[in-house]
Protein backbone atom coordinates (compact mmCIF):
# COMPACT_ATOMS: atom_id res chain seq x y z
CA UNK A 1 0.00 0.00 0.00
CA UNK A 2 1.49 3.33 -1.00
CA UNK A 3 0.74 6.77 0.39
CA UNK A 4 1.09 8.44 -2.99
CA UNK A 5 1.76 7.41 -6.57
CA UNK A 6 3.61 9.82 -8.88
CA UNK A 7 3.62 9.44 -12.64
CA UNK A 8 6.63 10.17 -14.80
CA UNK A 9 7.94 9.18 -18.20
CA UNK A 10 8.83 5.51 -18.45
CA UNK A 11 12.38 5.05 -17.31
CA UNK A 12 15.43 2.83 -17.35
CA UNK A 13 16.54 -0.05 -15.14
CA UNK A 14 14.93 -2.42 -12.66
CA UNK A 15 12.32 -1.80 -9.97
CA UNK A 16 13.81 -0.91 -6.58
CA UNK A 17 12.72 0.46 -3.27
CA UNK A 18 14.80 2.41 -0.81
CA UNK A 19 15.26 5.59 1.16
CA UNK A 20 15.28 8.94 -0.63
CA UNK A 21 17.93 11.64 -0.45
CA UNK A 22 16.20 14.70 -1.85
CA UNK A 23 17.03 18.36 -2.60
CA UNK A 24 15.96 21.03 -5.09
CA UNK A 25 19.44 21.09 -6.58
CA UNK A 26 21.05 19.65 -9.70
CA UNK A 27 23.25 16.61 -10.23
CA UNK A 28 26.48 15.55 -11.85
CA UNK A 29 28.66 12.65 -10.77
CA UNK A 30 31.75 14.64 -11.71
CA UNK A 31 30.84 18.05 -10.33
CA UNK A 32 29.14 17.14 -7.09
CA UNK A 33 30.46 13.87 -5.68
CA UNK A 34 33.44 12.47 -3.87
CA UNK A 35 33.05 9.11 -5.57
CA UNK A 36 35.66 7.42 -3.40
CA UNK A 37 34.02 8.38 -0.10
CA UNK A 38 30.44 8.21 -1.32
CA UNK A 39 29.50 11.74 -0.24
CA UNK A 40 28.43 14.99 -1.89
CA UNK A 41 31.61 17.05 -1.97
CA UNK A 42 30.63 20.29 -3.64
CA UNK A 43 30.37 22.93 -0.89
CA UNK A 44 27.61 24.87 -2.63
CA UNK A 45 25.43 21.77 -3.18
CA UNK A 46 22.41 21.44 -0.91
CA UNK A 47 23.42 17.85 -0.13
CA UNK A 48 27.02 18.76 0.74
CA UNK A 49 28.47 16.20 3.13
CA UNK A 50 25.54 13.76 2.74
CA UNK A 51 26.24 10.09 2.06
CA UNK A 52 24.57 8.90 -1.12
CA UNK A 53 25.56 5.24 -1.41
CA UNK A 54 22.48 3.00 -1.45
CA UNK A 55 20.07 5.99 -1.39
CA UNK A 56 17.63 7.00 -4.12
CA UNK A 57 18.71 10.46 -5.23
CA UNK A 58 15.86 12.87 -5.90
CA UNK A 59 17.15 16.04 -7.55
CA UNK A 60 16.19 18.69 -10.05
CA UNK A 61 18.20 18.60 -13.28
CA UNK A 62 21.13 16.83 -14.89
CA UNK A 63 24.14 19.10 -14.75
CA UNK A 64 27.34 19.38 -16.76
CA UNK A 65 28.59 17.06 -19.42
CA UNK A 66 29.38 13.57 -20.43
CA UNK A 67 31.52 12.26 -17.57
CA UNK A 68 28.65 10.90 -15.51
CA UNK A 69 27.99 8.09 -17.98
CA UNK A 70 31.28 6.26 -17.38
CA UNK A 71 31.32 7.34 -13.73
CA UNK A 72 27.96 5.83 -12.74
CA UNK A 73 29.18 2.49 -14.06
CA UNK A 74 32.43 2.75 -12.11
CA UNK A 75 30.51 3.69 -8.96
CA UNK A 76 28.34 0.57 -9.28
CA UNK A 77 31.44 -1.59 -9.78
CA UNK A 78 33.01 -0.12 -6.63
CA UNK A 79 29.79 -0.38 -4.61
CA UNK A 80 29.73 3.42 -4.27
CA UNK A 81 26.59 4.11 -6.27
CA UNK A 82 23.16 5.47 -5.43
CA UNK A 83 20.36 2.92 -5.56
CA UNK A 84 18.38 4.98 -8.05
CA UNK A 85 18.04 8.43 -9.55
CA UNK A 86 14.97 10.64 -10.05
CA UNK A 87 15.32 14.00 -11.78
CA UNK A 88 12.76 16.54 -12.88
CA UNK A 89 14.81 17.17 -15.99
CA UNK A 90 17.22 14.52 -17.24
CA UNK A 91 19.59 14.65 -20.19
CA UNK A 92 21.10 12.02 -22.50
CA UNK A 93 24.17 11.57 -20.31
CA UNK A 94 22.13 10.46 -17.30
CA UNK A 95 20.00 8.15 -19.45
CA UNK A 96 23.08 6.64 -21.10
CA UNK A 97 24.88 6.32 -17.77
CA UNK A 98 21.87 4.72 -16.10
CA UNK A 99 21.38 2.30 -19.00
CA UNK A 100 25.07 1.35 -18.96
CA UNK A 101 25.23 0.96 -15.17
CA UNK A 102 21.69 -0.44 -14.84
CA UNK A 103 20.80 2.17 -12.24
CA UNK A 104 17.03 2.82 -12.11
CA UNK A 105 16.38 6.28 -13.54
CA UNK A 106 13.25 8.32 -14.26
CA UNK A 107 12.42 11.92 -15.14
CA UNK A 108 9.59 14.11 -16.54
CA UNK A 109 7.14 13.77 -13.63
CA UNK A 110 3.71 15.31 -13.39
CA UNK A 111 4.85 17.14 -10.22
CA UNK A 112 8.09 18.68 -8.99
CA UNK A 113 9.67 15.47 -7.76
CA UNK A 114 11.98 17.28 -5.31
CA UNK A 115 8.95 18.82 -3.58
CA UNK A 116 6.93 15.62 -3.60
CA UNK A 117 9.62 13.44 -2.02
CA UNK A 118 11.60 14.31 1.10
CA UNK A 119 14.87 12.96 2.40
CA UNK A 120 14.12 9.88 4.48
CA UNK A 121 10.93 8.88 2.64
CA UNK A 122 10.76 5.23 1.66
CA UNK A 123 9.95 5.04 -2.04
CA UNK A 124 9.58 2.47 -4.79
CA UNK A 125 10.61 3.19 -8.38
CA UNK A 126 9.03 1.19 -11.21
CA UNK A 127 10.83 2.57 -14.29
CA UNK A 128 9.15 0.29 -16.82
CA UNK A 129 5.75 1.72 -15.86
CA UNK A 130 6.91 5.26 -15.17
CA UNK A 131 5.71 5.13 -11.56
CA UNK A 132 7.18 6.22 -8.24
CA UNK A 133 5.39 5.22 -5.06
CA UNK A 134 5.91 6.79 -1.67
CA UNK A 135 5.65 3.88 0.74
CA UNK A 136 6.22 5.74 3.98
CA UNK A 137 7.02 9.28 5.02
CA UNK A 138 9.81 10.23 7.32
CA UNK A 139 8.42 11.21 10.73
CA UNK A 140 9.31 14.75 11.65
Amino acid sequence: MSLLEIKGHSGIGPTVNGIALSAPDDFSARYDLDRDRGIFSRPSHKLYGEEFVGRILVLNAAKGGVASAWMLHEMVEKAKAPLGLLLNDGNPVMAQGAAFAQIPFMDRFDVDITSAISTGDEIEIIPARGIVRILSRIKT
Partner: protein
Amino acid sequence: MKLDDVEKAMLDGKYGRAAAWAIEFQKDVGTFFDAEDFVPIRLVHVSTDRETMGDSGIAFIEELGSLRPSERYPRAYATADFRGFDKENFSFLLPGRNLEVEVRQAVDALGKLGVVTNHAYVNDHSVTAPGFGEACGYSGTPSVIYMNSIVGARCNFEAGPSSLAAFFTGRVPRYGFHLDAKRFATHGFRLSFSPENIVDWGVVGALIGRELNSYWCVPALELTGPPPTVLELNHMALAMASYGSIAMFHVVNVTPEAPDWETAAGGKKLDVKTVDSNDVRMFYQEWGGIGDELDVVALSTPQLTVTEIIEIAALLDGKRVHERTTLLIYAPKEIKEACARIGLTQIIEKAGARMVHGHDFFATFAKEIRLAHKWDRLMTHSVKMVNICEGYGYQPTPASIQRCIQSAIAGKVIG
Protein backbone atom coordinates in the same frame (compact mmCIF):
# COMPACT_ATOMS: atom_id res chain seq x y z
CA MET B 1 11.40 2.56 -31.77
CA LYS B 2 11.09 1.47 -35.34
CA LEU B 3 13.99 -0.78 -36.34
CA ASP B 4 14.91 -1.50 -39.94
CA ASP B 5 16.03 -4.95 -41.10
CA VAL B 6 19.71 -4.28 -40.36
CA GLU B 7 18.94 -3.01 -36.85
CA LYS B 8 16.73 -6.03 -36.14
CA ALA B 9 19.53 -8.30 -37.34
CA MET B 10 21.98 -6.46 -35.06
CA LEU B 11 19.65 -6.99 -32.15
CA ASP B 12 19.45 -10.71 -33.04
CA GLY B 13 23.25 -10.93 -32.93
CA LYS B 14 23.72 -11.45 -36.66
CA TYR B 15 26.19 -8.54 -36.85
CA GLY B 16 28.27 -9.72 -33.91
CA ARG B 17 28.11 -9.43 -30.15
CA ALA B 18 29.41 -5.86 -29.95
CA ALA B 19 26.71 -4.58 -32.31
CA ALA B 20 24.08 -6.60 -30.42
CA TRP B 21 25.09 -4.95 -27.13
CA ALA B 22 25.27 -1.57 -28.80
CA ILE B 23 21.90 -1.57 -30.55
CA GLU B 24 20.11 -2.79 -27.43
CA PHE B 25 21.75 -0.07 -25.37
CA GLN B 26 20.87 2.57 -27.97
CA LYS B 27 17.30 1.28 -28.19
CA ASP B 28 16.90 1.67 -24.41
CA VAL B 29 18.17 5.24 -24.54
CA GLY B 30 16.18 6.08 -27.68
CA THR B 31 12.99 4.71 -26.14
CA PHE B 32 13.59 6.78 -23.02
CA PHE B 33 13.60 9.91 -25.21
CA ASP B 34 10.75 8.78 -27.52
CA ALA B 35 13.02 8.46 -30.56
CA GLU B 36 11.10 7.14 -33.53
CA ASP B 37 14.05 5.54 -35.27
CA PHE B 38 17.82 5.71 -35.81
CA VAL B 39 19.87 8.09 -37.95
CA PRO B 40 23.05 6.91 -39.72
CA ILE B 41 26.36 8.49 -38.74
CA ARG B 42 29.87 8.32 -40.13
CA LEU B 43 31.96 10.07 -37.44
CA VAL B 44 32.28 9.22 -33.75
CA HIS B 45 34.27 10.90 -31.00
CA VAL B 46 34.90 8.86 -27.87
CA SER B 47 35.51 10.69 -24.60
CA THR B 48 38.22 8.76 -22.83
CA ASP B 49 39.99 10.58 -20.07
CA ARG B 50 41.33 7.98 -17.70
CA GLU B 51 39.69 9.28 -14.55
CA THR B 52 36.25 9.36 -16.13
CA MET B 53 36.45 5.88 -17.66
CA GLY B 54 37.60 4.24 -14.46
CA ASP B 55 38.97 0.73 -14.23
CA SER B 56 35.57 -0.72 -15.07
CA GLY B 57 35.37 1.31 -18.28
CA ILE B 58 38.76 -0.01 -19.36
CA ALA B 59 37.70 -3.55 -18.46
CA PHE B 60 34.55 -3.14 -20.55
CA ILE B 61 36.55 -1.97 -23.58
CA GLU B 62 39.10 -4.76 -23.10
CA GLU B 63 36.25 -7.28 -22.99
CA LEU B 64 34.94 -5.95 -26.30
CA GLY B 65 38.49 -6.16 -27.67
CA SER B 66 38.77 -9.80 -26.65
CA LEU B 67 35.95 -10.70 -29.04
CA ARG B 68 36.87 -12.10 -32.44
CA PRO B 69 37.14 -9.28 -35.02
CA SER B 70 33.97 -10.45 -36.77
CA GLU B 71 32.11 -9.99 -33.47
CA ARG B 72 33.24 -6.37 -33.04
CA TYR B 73 33.29 -4.94 -36.53
CA PRO B 74 33.23 -1.10 -36.53
CA ARG B 75 30.59 0.71 -38.57
CA ALA B 76 31.85 4.29 -38.19
CA TYR B 77 35.18 6.14 -37.92
CA ALA B 78 36.01 6.86 -34.29
CA THR B 79 38.63 9.09 -32.73
CA ALA B 80 39.65 9.77 -29.15
CA ASP B 81 41.75 12.86 -28.45
CA PHE B 82 44.17 11.67 -25.78
CA ARG B 83 46.56 14.59 -26.27
CA GLY B 84 49.56 12.43 -25.41
CA PHE B 85 51.02 11.54 -22.09
CA ASP B 86 53.47 13.81 -20.34
CA LYS B 87 55.56 11.56 -18.12
CA GLU B 88 57.63 14.26 -16.45
CA ASN B 89 54.77 16.56 -15.55
CA PHE B 90 52.29 13.89 -14.53
CA SER B 91 54.94 12.28 -12.31
CA PHE B 92 55.19 15.66 -10.59
CA LEU B 93 51.43 16.23 -10.42
CA LEU B 94 50.46 12.72 -9.33
CA PRO B 95 53.42 11.21 -7.48
CA GLY B 96 51.29 8.41 -6.04
CA ARG B 97 49.83 7.16 -9.29
CA ASN B 98 51.38 5.43 -12.28
CA LEU B 99 49.26 7.28 -14.79
CA GLU B 100 51.49 6.28 -17.67
CA VAL B 101 50.50 2.63 -17.28
CA GLU B 102 46.84 3.50 -16.79
CA VAL B 103 46.72 5.69 -19.88
CA ARG B 104 48.59 3.08 -21.92
CA GLN B 105 45.94 0.53 -20.94
CA ALA B 106 43.22 2.78 -22.31
CA VAL B 107 45.08 3.59 -25.53
CA ASP B 108 45.82 -0.08 -26.16
CA ALA B 109 42.26 -1.20 -25.43
CA LEU B 110 40.75 1.43 -27.73
CA GLY B 111 43.36 0.78 -30.40
CA LYS B 112 42.46 -2.89 -30.46
CA LEU B 113 38.87 -1.93 -31.26
CA GLY B 114 40.00 0.38 -34.05
CA VAL B 115 39.38 3.69 -32.25
CA VAL B 116 42.07 6.13 -33.41
CA THR B 117 43.81 7.73 -30.46
CA ASN B 118 45.52 10.95 -31.45
CA HIS B 119 46.94 13.92 -29.58
CA ALA B 120 45.04 16.85 -30.98
CA TYR B 121 41.85 18.49 -29.79
CA VAL B 122 38.86 17.54 -31.91
CA ASN B 123 37.41 21.08 -31.78
CA ASP B 124 40.59 22.22 -33.54
CA HIS B 125 39.39 20.07 -36.46
CA SER B 126 42.12 17.50 -35.94
CA VAL B 127 39.63 15.14 -37.56
CA THR B 128 37.81 16.52 -40.59
CA ALA B 129 34.63 17.90 -39.07
CA PRO B 130 31.18 16.63 -40.02
CA GLY B 131 29.39 18.69 -42.65
CA PHE B 132 26.53 21.12 -42.08
CA GLY B 133 23.42 19.15 -41.20
CA GLU B 134 25.32 15.85 -40.88
CA ALA B 135 24.42 13.59 -37.94
CA CYS B 136 27.37 12.49 -35.84
CA GLY B 137 28.09 10.61 -32.61
CA TYR B 138 30.36 12.89 -30.58
CA SER B 139 31.01 12.31 -26.94
CA GLY B 140 32.95 15.19 -25.43
CA THR B 141 30.70 17.89 -23.96
CA PRO B 142 32.57 20.75 -25.66
CA SER B 143 32.69 18.83 -28.93
CA VAL B 144 28.94 18.27 -29.03
CA ILE B 145 28.00 21.90 -28.41
CA TYR B 146 30.69 23.02 -30.88
CA MET B 147 29.46 20.69 -33.63
CA ASN B 148 25.80 21.61 -33.13
CA SER B 149 26.25 25.34 -32.83
CA ILE B 150 29.34 26.39 -34.74
CA VAL B 151 29.61 23.69 -37.41
CA GLY B 152 25.87 23.06 -37.80
CA ALA B 153 26.25 19.28 -37.56
CA ARG B 154 23.69 17.35 -35.52
CA CYS B 155 24.51 15.59 -32.30
CA ASN B 156 23.33 14.76 -28.79
CA PHE B 157 25.70 14.14 -25.92
CA GLU B 158 26.79 10.59 -26.78
CA ALA B 159 28.66 9.98 -23.53
CA GLY B 160 31.52 7.42 -23.42
CA PRO B 161 29.71 4.07 -23.69
CA SER B 162 27.10 5.63 -25.97
CA SER B 163 29.69 6.78 -28.49
CA LEU B 164 31.20 3.29 -28.46
CA ALA B 165 27.75 1.90 -29.23
CA ALA B 166 27.51 4.29 -32.20
CA PHE B 167 30.92 3.05 -33.35
CA PHE B 168 29.59 -0.52 -33.57
CA THR B 169 26.20 0.26 -35.11
CA GLY B 170 26.98 3.25 -37.36
CA ARG B 171 23.88 5.04 -36.12
CA VAL B 172 22.40 6.90 -33.17
CA PRO B 173 18.82 7.28 -31.90
CA ARG B 174 17.02 10.15 -33.63
CA TYR B 175 15.87 12.49 -30.87
CA GLY B 176 16.93 15.85 -29.45
CA PHE B 177 19.28 17.79 -31.70
CA HIS B 178 18.82 15.45 -34.64
CA LEU B 179 15.31 16.90 -35.01
CA ASP B 180 14.71 20.25 -36.75
CA ALA B 181 12.18 21.38 -34.15
CA LYS B 182 14.58 20.86 -31.22
CA ARG B 183 17.30 23.02 -32.79
CA PHE B 184 15.35 26.27 -32.75
CA ALA B 185 16.11 28.82 -30.06
CA THR B 186 13.92 28.60 -26.98
CA HIS B 187 15.33 31.65 -25.14
CA GLY B 188 16.73 34.97 -26.30
CA PHE B 189 19.62 36.99 -24.86
CA ARG B 190 21.24 40.25 -25.84
CA LEU B 191 24.75 41.29 -24.81
CA SER B 192 24.77 44.98 -23.98
CA PHE B 193 28.56 45.12 -23.89
CA SER B 194 31.50 43.71 -25.77
CA PRO B 195 33.44 41.03 -23.82
CA GLU B 196 37.08 41.99 -23.39
CA ASN B 197 38.69 38.57 -23.54
CA ILE B 198 38.00 34.84 -23.75
CA VAL B 199 37.30 34.57 -20.01
CA ASP B 200 34.54 37.17 -20.32
CA TRP B 201 33.06 35.03 -23.10
CA GLY B 202 33.23 32.05 -20.78
CA VAL B 203 31.44 34.04 -18.08
CA VAL B 204 28.68 34.93 -20.55
CA GLY B 205 28.28 31.22 -21.28
CA ALA B 206 28.20 30.41 -17.56
CA LEU B 207 25.53 33.04 -16.88
CA ILE B 208 23.31 31.79 -19.70
CA GLY B 209 23.90 28.16 -18.72
CA ARG B 210 22.94 28.86 -15.10
CA GLU B 211 19.85 30.77 -16.18
CA LEU B 212 18.51 28.01 -18.44
CA ASN B 213 19.85 24.94 -16.65
CA SER B 214 18.44 22.37 -19.05
CA TYR B 215 19.83 20.29 -21.89
CA TRP B 216 16.65 20.96 -23.86
CA CYS B 217 16.99 24.75 -23.85
CA VAL B 218 18.62 26.47 -26.84
CA PRO B 219 19.74 30.05 -26.23
CA ALA B 220 20.10 32.56 -29.05
CA LEU B 221 22.33 35.52 -28.44
CA GLU B 222 22.51 38.92 -30.09
CA LEU B 223 25.83 40.72 -29.80
CA THR B 224 27.07 44.23 -29.48
CA GLY B 225 30.46 44.87 -30.99
CA PRO B 226 32.59 42.88 -33.40
CA PRO B 227 31.86 39.23 -34.19
CA PRO B 228 33.60 36.78 -31.84
CA THR B 229 36.46 34.52 -32.81
CA VAL B 230 35.97 30.76 -32.86
CA LEU B 231 38.06 30.48 -29.69
CA GLU B 232 35.81 32.99 -27.93
CA LEU B 233 32.73 31.08 -29.04
CA ASN B 234 34.37 27.86 -27.87
CA HIS B 235 34.94 29.28 -24.36
CA MET B 236 31.32 30.44 -24.24
CA ALA B 237 30.15 27.04 -25.45
CA LEU B 238 32.16 25.10 -22.87
CA ALA B 239 30.80 27.22 -20.07
CA MET B 240 27.19 26.95 -21.25
CA ALA B 241 27.54 23.17 -21.34
CA SER B 242 29.26 23.07 -17.98
CA TYR B 243 26.90 25.36 -16.06
CA GLY B 244 23.67 24.46 -17.81
CA SER B 245 24.16 21.16 -19.65
CA ILE B 246 23.41 23.17 -22.81
CA ALA B 247 24.26 21.36 -26.07
CA MET B 248 23.31 23.96 -28.66
CA PHE B 249 23.19 27.75 -29.03
CA HIS B 250 22.84 30.35 -31.75
CA VAL B 251 24.57 33.67 -32.18
CA VAL B 252 22.44 35.79 -34.46
CA ASN B 253 24.22 36.68 -37.67
CA VAL B 254 27.23 34.55 -36.68
CA THR B 255 26.40 30.84 -36.33
CA PRO B 256 25.13 28.92 -39.34
CA GLU B 257 21.53 28.31 -38.33
CA ALA B 258 20.93 31.88 -37.14
CA PRO B 259 21.12 34.34 -40.04
CA ASP B 260 18.43 36.31 -38.16
CA TRP B 261 16.23 36.03 -35.06
CA GLU B 262 13.27 34.61 -36.94
CA THR B 263 15.25 31.76 -38.48
CA ALA B 264 17.07 31.01 -35.22
CA ALA B 265 13.78 30.74 -33.32
CA GLY B 266 11.84 28.92 -36.03
CA GLY B 267 9.45 31.85 -36.49
CA LYS B 268 8.66 32.19 -32.78
CA LYS B 269 8.89 35.55 -31.06
CA LEU B 270 11.16 35.21 -28.04
CA ASP B 271 11.47 37.44 -25.02
CA VAL B 272 15.01 38.72 -24.96
CA LYS B 273 16.90 39.10 -21.71
CA THR B 274 19.88 41.42 -21.48
CA VAL B 275 23.25 40.30 -20.14
CA ASP B 276 25.32 43.31 -19.15
CA SER B 277 28.82 43.95 -17.89
CA ASN B 278 27.56 44.18 -14.31
CA ASP B 279 26.36 40.55 -14.51
CA VAL B 280 29.86 39.56 -15.58
CA ARG B 281 31.45 41.60 -12.81
CA MET B 282 29.21 39.97 -10.21
CA PHE B 283 30.21 36.53 -11.48
CA TYR B 284 33.89 37.29 -10.95
CA GLN B 285 33.18 38.74 -7.51
CA GLU B 286 31.37 35.64 -6.31
CA TRP B 287 34.57 33.57 -6.57
CA GLY B 288 36.74 36.11 -4.77
CA GLY B 289 40.23 35.25 -3.59
CA ILE B 290 41.93 38.59 -4.26
CA GLY B 291 44.99 38.89 -2.06
CA ASP B 292 45.10 35.17 -1.22
CA GLU B 293 48.32 33.22 -1.53
CA LEU B 294 48.17 31.38 -4.84
CA ASP B 295 48.97 27.68 -5.02
CA VAL B 296 48.38 26.81 -8.65
CA VAL B 297 47.47 28.39 -11.95
CA ALA B 298 46.12 25.96 -14.53
CA LEU B 299 45.58 27.31 -18.03
CA SER B 300 43.57 24.67 -19.84
CA THR B 301 40.01 23.63 -20.73
CA PRO B 302 40.11 23.97 -23.60
CA GLN B 303 43.78 23.26 -24.05
CA LEU B 304 45.67 26.18 -25.44
CA THR B 305 46.36 27.20 -28.99
CA VAL B 306 49.62 28.70 -30.25
CA THR B 307 48.20 32.25 -30.17
CA GLU B 308 47.44 32.02 -26.45
CA ILE B 309 50.87 30.54 -25.76
CA ILE B 310 52.50 33.43 -27.62
CA GLU B 311 50.64 35.79 -25.24
CA ILE B 312 51.78 33.79 -22.21
CA ALA B 313 55.40 33.68 -23.34
CA ALA B 314 55.38 37.46 -23.81
CA LEU B 315 54.02 37.94 -20.28
CA LEU B 316 56.61 35.57 -18.79
CA ASP B 317 59.65 36.65 -20.80
CA GLY B 318 62.40 37.63 -18.37
CA LYS B 319 60.15 37.08 -15.33
CA ARG B 320 60.03 34.32 -12.73
CA VAL B 321 57.01 32.44 -11.37
CA HIS B 322 56.80 32.86 -7.58
CA GLU B 323 58.25 29.91 -5.65
CA ARG B 324 54.98 29.20 -3.83
CA THR B 325 52.96 29.01 -7.06
CA THR B 326 52.88 26.31 -9.73
CA LEU B 327 52.01 27.52 -13.21
CA LEU B 328 50.66 24.81 -15.52
CA ILE B 329 50.06 25.48 -19.20
CA TYR B 330 48.24 22.70 -21.04
CA ALA B 331 48.49 22.15 -24.79
CA PRO B 332 48.15 19.14 -27.07
CA LYS B 333 51.46 17.41 -27.74
CA GLU B 334 51.81 18.72 -31.30
CA ILE B 335 51.12 22.29 -30.16
CA LYS B 336 53.69 21.97 -27.39
CA GLU B 337 56.27 20.69 -29.87
CA ALA B 338 55.41 23.45 -32.33
CA CYS B 339 55.89 26.00 -29.54
CA ALA B 340 59.29 24.50 -28.73
CA ARG B 341 60.34 24.86 -32.37
CA ILE B 342 59.77 28.63 -32.23
CA GLY B 343 61.28 29.08 -28.77
CA LEU B 344 58.11 29.70 -26.75
CA THR B 345 58.39 26.61 -24.58
CA GLN B 346 61.92 27.59 -23.58
CA ILE B 347 60.81 31.08 -22.48
CA ILE B 348 57.95 29.61 -20.47
CA GLU B 349 60.05 26.93 -18.80
CA LYS B 350 62.87 29.36 -18.06
CA ALA B 351 60.34 31.39 -16.08
CA GLY B 352 59.61 28.32 -13.97
CA ALA B 353 56.27 27.34 -15.54
CA ARG B 354 55.40 23.88 -16.79
CA MET B 355 54.12 23.12 -20.29
CA VAL B 356 51.94 20.03 -19.90
CA HIS B 357 50.50 17.81 -22.59
CA GLY B 358 47.95 15.10 -21.95
CA HIS B 359 44.46 15.25 -20.57
CA ASP B 360 43.16 18.41 -18.98
CA PHE B 361 43.92 19.39 -15.42
CA PHE B 362 40.32 18.90 -14.27
CA ALA B 363 40.07 15.49 -15.95
CA THR B 364 43.25 13.99 -14.52
CA PHE B 365 42.51 13.24 -10.89
CA ALA B 366 42.46 16.91 -9.90
CA LYS B 367 41.33 16.04 -6.38
CA GLU B 368 44.32 13.73 -5.94
CA ILE B 369 46.59 16.47 -7.27
CA ARG B 370 45.17 18.90 -4.71
CA LEU B 371 45.71 16.47 -1.85
CA ALA B 372 49.21 15.48 -2.99
CA HIS B 373 50.38 19.10 -3.14
CA LYS B 374 48.13 20.54 -0.40
CA TRP B 375 46.85 23.05 -2.93
CA ASP B 376 43.88 25.22 -2.20
CA ARG B 377 43.71 28.46 -4.22
CA LEU B 378 43.52 27.86 -7.97
CA MET B 379 43.43 30.42 -10.77
CA THR B 380 42.39 29.71 -14.33
CA HIS B 381 41.04 31.46 -17.40
CA SER B 382 38.54 28.61 -17.88
CA VAL B 383 35.22 29.17 -16.11
CA LYS B 384 34.37 25.53 -16.84
CA MET B 385 37.38 24.47 -14.79
CA VAL B 386 36.27 26.80 -12.00
CA ASN B 387 32.91 25.02 -11.90
CA ILE B 388 34.40 21.53 -11.78
CA CYS B 389 37.31 22.19 -9.46
CA GLU B 390 35.10 23.74 -6.79
CA GLY B 391 33.63 20.24 -6.39
CA TYR B 392 37.14 18.84 -5.99
CA GLY B 393 37.83 21.08 -3.01
CA TYR B 394 39.76 23.89 -4.68
CA GLN B 395 39.00 27.56 -4.12
CA PRO B 396 39.03 28.69 -7.71
CA THR B 397 39.34 32.21 -9.08
CA PRO B 398 38.53 32.89 -12.75
CA ALA B 399 40.61 35.58 -14.43
CA SER B 400 42.08 36.60 -17.76
CA ILE B 401 45.29 34.95 -18.94
CA GLN B 402 47.09 38.21 -18.22
CA ARG B 403 45.85 38.34 -14.62
CA CYS B 404 46.60 34.65 -14.11
CA ILE B 405 50.20 35.10 -15.23
CA GLN B 406 50.72 38.29 -13.22
CA SER B 407 49.32 36.52 -10.16
CA ALA B 408 51.60 33.52 -10.69
CA ILE B 409 54.58 35.88 -10.74
CA ALA B 410 53.33 37.68 -7.61
CA GLY B 411 52.49 34.41 -5.80
CA LYS B 412 49.08 35.76 -4.86
CA VAL B 413 45.77 36.53 -6.54
CA ILE B 414 45.94 40.06 -7.83
CA GLY B 415 42.83 42.09 -8.67
